[in-house]
């Protein structure tokens, strides 16, 4: 310290301090300035995403859902359906609709995930609605399969069948099979209630309950068929039909062979 105390009045100290102050101010300014473009970019990015989503929407969806997503006689209003509904409907290929009918079918998605995200951002910008579930929402690995089974059998199995194979509703509508659905789609379907399906909001079945249901469905998707051909896992009806058609046809062929006179 003595070294500094002796030299503090040296003319070079003033210059050094000035230099230090200038560097400090410069660095501080640079930090502030460099932070601002990042924020601005994020805002701009979202606006861009919404803008691009709007363009995709106008080109692909507005003929049925209306120019302002207000809905027409051909399609429902999308105001307030939320990003999750867009991600589910377009991500499973149900929208854009292949053909008018009782129900939209699962198909290969017609848009890339980036485009779906853009349209989801546009629809979410119109009015608040269910958000796309986060990775944390979807971390179902620790969930309770048995609890999921109880909730699935109580609320889901009567339409989707106890093994998740789907089933008939009224007037040509049906509950689809869940064997293709991934965790995100199952979560979004519960959250938004697509088509005839009722909404299972986080108020009625919370995130933990939804994760348990996803775990149960995943367990059914992954389970093998130890007994042989699953026949849609529909149980005795499908098995009886198989016996009365395929097996009986084979038996009739054998009976015909027995009856043919040997040459």
């Amino acid at each position, binding site marked *: 310290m003595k070294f500094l105390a002796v030299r503090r009045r040296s003319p070079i100290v003033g210059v050094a301090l000035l230099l230090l102050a200038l560097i400090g101010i410069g660095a501080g300014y640079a930090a502030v300035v460099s932070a601002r473009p990042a924020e601005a970019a994020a805002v701009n990015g979202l606006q861009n995403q919404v803008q691009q989503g709007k363009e995709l929407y106008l080109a692909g969806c507005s003929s049925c859902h209306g120019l302002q997503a207000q809905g027409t006689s051909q399609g429902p209003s999308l105001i307030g359906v939320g990003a999750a509904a867009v991600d589910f409907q377009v991500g499973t290929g149900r929208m854009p609709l292949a053909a008018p009918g009782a129900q939209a079918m699962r198909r290969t998605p017609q848009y890339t995930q980036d485009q779906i995200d853009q349209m989801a951002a546009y629809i979410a910008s119109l009015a608040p609605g269910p958000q796309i579930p986060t990775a944390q929402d979807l971390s179902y690995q620790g969930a309770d399969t048995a*609890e999921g089974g*109880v*909730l699935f059998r*109580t*609320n889901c199995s*009567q*339409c989707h069948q106890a093994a998740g194979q789907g*089933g008939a*509703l*009224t007037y040509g*509508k049906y*509950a689809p099979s869940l064997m293709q659905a991934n965790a995100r789609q199952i979560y979004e379907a519960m959250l938004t*209630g697509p*088509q*005839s*399906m*009722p*909404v*299972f*909001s986080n*108020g*009625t*079945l*919370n995130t933990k*309950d939804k994760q348990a249901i996803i775990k149960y469905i995943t367990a059914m998707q992954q389970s*093998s*068929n*130890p*007994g*042989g*051909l*699953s026949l849609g896992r529909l149980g005795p009806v499908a098995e009886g039909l198989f016996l009365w058609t395929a097996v009986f046809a084979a038996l009739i062929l054998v009976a015909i*062979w*027995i009856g043919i006179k*040997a*040459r």
Partner: protein
Amino acid sequence: MNEITPAAEHHYDGPGALPVADVPHKARLTDTDPQAARRAERQVTFMFILAILLFIAFIVAYIAVDKNTVVYIPVFGEVGASTMLLGLTLGLGAFLIGAAAIQWAKKLMPDVEVVQERHEMASPESADHEALDAYTRGKTESGFAQYKMIRRTLIGAMALFPIPLVVILRDLWVTPPGSPGPATILSHTLWRKGSRIVVDGTYQPLKASDLPVGGMISAVPADLPAVEDATGNLDARGKAAIVVVRMAPNEIVSQQGTNWDYQGILAFSKICTHAGCPISLYEQRTHHLLCPCHQSTFDLADGGAVVFGPAARPMPQLPIGVDAEGYLVAQADFAVPIGPSFWERG
């Protein structure tokens, strides 16, 4: 009658002559060509040998293949290796025994057409007399016509015999002495004024804000778990199960009572009024509740009215409201008995 005669010796030219007698016998290839006969012999032997090998394979598979092994087979998908092998070897082996026996019979066993005449449809007169004699002898020897008292009491006893079987049906439902009768028990559920509505499975109480428009959830009264623990059966659940749905208040056409909804939230019994199946196939856009058993369809926006199917009564509605803390509660028990009709029901 009934004797079998080789067709070659059978000469009958009268009315109704059998066409088979007119068809000239055609020898088989195995009858004329010794090489073909040897070939057929080899075929049959081969099938029997294959069956032997399959049965040995069955035993080997039974011992060697772990029953939990899963293999992928195209078309079939992921299947149990053990089940598949056991079924294939035993089934194919049994089929081959049958196929070999038929091939043997068709190709190598004697090939002679035979004619077997049908016996007459009517039984011979002697049999008729025998039956009549037996009946008359029984009638006179037993004295059925003679002992009037015996005859009448016998008829009375036989007529009353099925009655006890009908009476015991009444006690299929055994109620402890002093408890109300089945009709009373069936007519009342756990729901009463102030019973909180909780989600079936998680038993979380519900607030009105938890249920969005278009939402549905299966629910039960909050005290159901305690009652189930005490009784050890599912009777209370079978009667108290409900579905809670929410629709925009202006979509509600009618209800079973004034203001039985709470801001568009409606509660209905989950038990079909036709055959008692629990139903929750709710189509949120049409507000229809569909029973998977016999396709009875109820319109929940129109007081649970039956719009299709065999159900004869509308789905009973549970009047609901909220308590001081804002949780959904029942206003009262169901006004009518839930579930299928029964005798004492008005």
